[in-house]
């Protein structure tokens, strides 16, 4: 039974059709037909005003699936031409997200609004509460002057009838850094200089207007050309596949990947490096340190919080170390990171050892399009045995626990603080701690952009609860870094 929103289902259906077209004998033409097959002549019109508008939107979504910016579409280029162009592309487009202008509703601007439930009371606490003189009374009810209103919400709190409401623009509200906003045309636009690619706007838009530009065609093309293509799977993937962890390697081989590495392998190195880094910092008097593995957080530091940079661990991400190992063992291989989120796109772009990113939804679409039943795949254990902590890296608190497990310094010195989801409030805290030069709540600050950790990334497939259980089951089968450390000491 589906828990997924319709917008997600449409995006997945397009990806499946796109991949089916790619593996067919008539790729470009079959891509062109996608909107017509999803909305054939005479079909019901489920969402928009007419079948033509629906097809136009599906066409734009397909463009994003092909990896292009929907903003650059001139509307007269055929989808089949986009499909061909995707095959000639040498490098994927740098910016990860794109807004579909014809699906964007052009939501009403955020405002505070007095509803008809206003009783035109005698006390008028709303007028008293407003510090900006924005509220007047027209004889029947209170009225807010939107020019003067600062949207502080004090009038809402003051109204005894709760008759004042605040409307929001979902994407603007979800974005923690103010990177998406309505432009003069009334439609949403992403400011790429501010965007940290966290993908919160993608999940928030009820019209499904923000998309990730997919690299799925680029990856399948490399496989089709017979290249050695290797998958580097994020620890979160174990929680989002309807099969045993041991079946994953075979599932990837069926797609055409030549090998699969667990990024948990690199997570073991991150944990040990970060523990060592943290110990050296504490010994030299540093007040606190933050983790450095969340791509959304790293972008935030770069673009909005440079003052916290001195407090960020120098340890590289698990993906970095894993890719280094893979490229050493297979220098000619094309490497693909299998990602739970969109934010890793920028990290992949900056790392020459990683060529492409495939997110969980795109991976799922490949399985569907190719008819691969992953729970019937043969079982094979990974050569490298990752630790319990590395396997649980993707859970909120998991990175801090791994540093604790690898810790060789003074007993009890590590005091974790967990930022479970980057929102505006969390960013304010981080800013404050950087300014004060200390963190009042502890000394090891774990930052994860998505509430719940990477298992709740914006491109995940299953439910958080199921993923959590699968990951902890898998973690419990691994050896703890703590055991390894103690054995070495003995």
């Amino acid at each position: 039974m589906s828990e997924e929103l319709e917008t997600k289902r449409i995006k997945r259906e397009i990806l499946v059709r796109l991949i089916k077209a790619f593996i067919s004998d008539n790729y470009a033409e079959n891509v062109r037909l996608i909107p017509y097959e999803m909305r054939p002549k005479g079909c019901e019109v489920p969402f928009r005003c007419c079948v033509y508008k629906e097809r136009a939107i599906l066409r734009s979504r397909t463009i994003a699936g092909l990896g292009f910016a929907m903003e650059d579409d001139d509307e007269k280029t055929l989808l089949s031409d986009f499909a061909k162009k995707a095959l000639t592309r040498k490098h994927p487009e740098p910016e990860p997200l794109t807004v579909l202008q014809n699906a964007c509703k052009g939501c009403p601007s955020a405002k505070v609004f007095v509803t008809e439930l206003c009783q035109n009371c005698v006390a008028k606490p709303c007028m008293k509460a407003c510090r900006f003189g924005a509220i007047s009374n027209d004889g029947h009810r209170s009225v807010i002057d939107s020019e003067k209103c600062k949207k502080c919400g004090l009038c809402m709190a003051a109204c005894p009838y709760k008759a004042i409401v605040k409307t929001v623009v979902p994407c603007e509200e979800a974005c923690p850094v103010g990177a998406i906003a309505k432009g003069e045309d009334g439609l949403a636009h992403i400011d790429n200089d501010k965007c940290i690619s966290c993908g919160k706007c993608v999940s928030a838009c009820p019209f499904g207007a923000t998309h990730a530009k997919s690299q799925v065609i680029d990856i399948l093309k490399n496989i089709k050309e017979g290249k050695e293509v290797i998958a580097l799977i994020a620890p979160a993937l174990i929680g989002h596949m309807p099969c045993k962890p041991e079946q994953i390697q075979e599932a990837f081989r069926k797609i055409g990947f030549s090998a699969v590495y667990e990024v948990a392998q690199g997570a073991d190195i991150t944990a040990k490096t970060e523990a060592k880094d943290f110990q050296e910092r504490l010994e030299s008097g540093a007040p606190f340190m933050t983790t450095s593995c969340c791509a959304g957080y790293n972008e935030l530091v770069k673009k909005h919080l440079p003052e916290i940079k001195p407090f960020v661990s120098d340890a590289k991400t698990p993906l970095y170390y894993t890719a280094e190992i893979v490229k050493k063992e297979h220098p000619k291989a094309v490497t693909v990171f299998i990602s739970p989120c969109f934010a890793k796109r920028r990290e992949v772009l900056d790392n020459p050892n990683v060529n492409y990113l495939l997110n969980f939804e795109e991976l799922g679409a490949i399985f569907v399009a190719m008819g691969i039943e992953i729970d019937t795949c043969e079982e094979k254990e990974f050569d490298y045995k990752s630790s319990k902590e590395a396997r649980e890296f993707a859970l909120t608190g998991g990175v801090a626990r791994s540093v604790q497990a690898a810790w060789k310094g003074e007993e009890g010195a590590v005091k974790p603080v967990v930022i479970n989801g980057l929102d505006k409030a969390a960013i304010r805290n981080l800013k404050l701690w950087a300014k004060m030069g200390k963190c009042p709540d502890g000394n090891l600050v774990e930052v994860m952009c998505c509430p719940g950790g990477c298992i709740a990334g914006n491109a995940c497939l299953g439910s958080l609860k199921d993923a959590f259980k699968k990951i902890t089951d898998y973690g419990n089968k691994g050896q703890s870094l703590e055991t390894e450390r103690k054995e070495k000491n003995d």
Partner: protein
Amino acid sequence: MKKIQVKVCQGTTCYVMGGSGSKSILDTLTEKYGDKIEIVSVRCFEICHKQDSFSKAPYVYVDDELISSASLEKVINVIESKLKNE
């Protein structure tokens, strides 16, 4: 009284198109109907491999009635009507 069978698909397509056998949904159904229903996991109904029928996944059977694009709400509606007709 014969239990109503709710058959959920374990296949990859049903999972990708919306988490057919999601534990939290199954728990909700068990909590609501207890002994009146029996939840059966089926490897795959094999409906999804036919042409475009993947897009209507996930599939669920309530006794012999097939529900496409199955949501918790749809399944509950069918169970309710079956309970009423008994």
